[in-house]
């Protein structure tokens, strides 16, 4: 039975795509529980199913086997209850809307009253450190700022669950470090549950309370690491032996699941 605190429950979850080259097992027998307030990273090589798993949670893909519940509901019901905010790899801001207008988009769709919209836009802009950019257009902002705006857009309607699919993948190292730090602060302040897909070992170890290591063909979980790192995480934590030890374990998990042939 699922515990009171679990946000995501997956049991024996699998998803097989039928393609012209035969079936592709994107997910195979995945069991995972995500507790409320967790910061869970999914790491693994391309094709390991980490994005597919996130999309199943978001009801953007439909599993072909097993059970999956989000907030105790089916993914479909959870999506209709607007249970999560989704951040895509590319910011995908509408070029014809200002930054404020982009953040207002979900609020308009969900039918928030105008006054509430205005308050939420300025509050979320402040959260991602973009106050004063409300009336700028996306092309006037750097890539990192655009991605922050897209996070603000996912935060605007106060879903308790944040699903992030390689949100910083296209950004350079320096911007990435900065955004990682900000994301941790945001997580600490809001107490949200975050599922975070990444390619980067340091990023996964630095951010997470739980690291899910996955491997391809078929897409499956090879290791789940509960991080012993403290909640307070300055950037230089990444030089400590504890940090490197976890990174080492992640690397081994990746190697074990991947034959590099």
């Amino acid at each position, binding site marked *: 039975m699922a515990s009171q605190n679990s946000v995501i429950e997956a049991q024996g979850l699998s998803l097989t795509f039928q393609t012209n080259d035969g079936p592709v097992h994107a997910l195979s027998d995945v069991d995972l529980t995500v507790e409320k307030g967790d910061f869970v990273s999914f790491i693994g090589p391309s094709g390991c199913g980490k994005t597919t798993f996130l999309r199943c949670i978001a009801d953007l893909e439909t599993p072909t086997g097993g059970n999956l519940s989000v907030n105790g509901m089916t993914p479909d019901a959870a999506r209709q209850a607007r249970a*999560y*905010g989704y951040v895509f790899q590319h910011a995908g801001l509408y*070029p014809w*809307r*200002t930054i404020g207008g982009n953040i207002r988009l979900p609020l308009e*769709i969900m039918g928030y009253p105008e006054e509430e919209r205005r308050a939420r836009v300025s509050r979320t802009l402040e959260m991602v450190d973009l106050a004063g950019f409300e009336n700028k257009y996306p*092309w006037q902002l750097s890539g990192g700022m655009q991605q922050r705006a897209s996070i603000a857009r996912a935060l605007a309607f106060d879903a308790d669950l944040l699903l992030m699919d390689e949100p910083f993948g296209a950004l350079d190292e320096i911007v990435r470090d900065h955004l990682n730090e900000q994301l941790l602060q945001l997580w600490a302040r809001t107490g949200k549950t975050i599922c975070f897909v990444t390619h980067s070992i340091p990023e996964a170890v630095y951010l997470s309370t739980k690291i899910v290591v996955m491997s391809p063909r078929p897409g499956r979980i090879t290791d789940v690491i509960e991080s012993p790192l403290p909640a307070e995480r300055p950037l230089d934590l990444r030089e400590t032996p504890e940090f490197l030890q976890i990174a080492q374990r992640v690397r081994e998990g990746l190697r074990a699941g991947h034959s590099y042939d």
Partner: protein
Amino acid sequence: MTKAVPAWVRSLIPIFSVLMVLLAIWYVAVAPMNIRVALDQAERAGAVVVPEGSVLRRDISVWRLMLDNPGVISGGYDLDRPRLPTPAQVGQELWKTTGEMAMKGRAWSKRSLIYHAWITLQSTLWGFALGTSLGIIGAIAIVYSRVADMSLMPWAIISQTIPIVALAPMIIVLSSQMGIDSRGVPKAIISAYLCYFPVLVGMVKGLRAPDMSQLDLLKTYDATGLQSFLKLRLPASLPYLFTSLKVGIAAALVGTIVGELPTGAISGLGARILIGDQFGTPLAIWAALFMAAILAGLLVSLLDGLQRFAARRMGLKT
């Protein structure tokens, strides 16, 4: 010390260069095109030409005639009924039938090109409105319905393979059978027939412009179909819409003129072209052609301005 040339002047330089080249080619072409008429006229006036008699000259090339009668060539530039009028003659004719008549208060006389352009413009705008609406509605149907996509699109393409000159008389006959006496209606239908296609194709592409992740994003918000149309597909399609509207209005004008050609119409630019042909007055044809070109230019510029305005309102870089 170089003086900065304003940007708009610099953008005009290439346009004028092309215009100059075209005018030069035109002026040079007048000589061979008009040499036979010039020789006929000179012969009637009593001049000595080689060889004598237009029947004999028929089998001789224009180049030979020019070589043998160098003195007559210049006469080709000042004919009443030239085969190819000079640009200056066309300009004069255009001015005589527009500005000059307007100054005399006869802008709406049946001999004024302003009047004929107005008749053509009316049908063009009706056809444009009809064709654009059909194009947009068709595009929405195609994007939202697989059945429409598979059934409408092939017919839309086939419709454009039928020459409009073949179809125009039938549309006119059929609409008069239905008791529609006004010439404007069949003309507008023909014009709409040409104009809807670019709008349809452009809008289908535009409405499909949003990528998968943008549609996924709206799904995560549990947005309705109407919401994703109004907030994503429609605004994303606007640049495509304006581009196809510019093609569409030019096609609508061509459609109207074609609709005026075979119908025995007595007003409109197409009618002027037909009448000019029947009465052997090429000057009238050329003047009407240029009037049509000016009209098309104005309409396209108008839409271009509207597009810039919309782009600026939407915060897009122009």
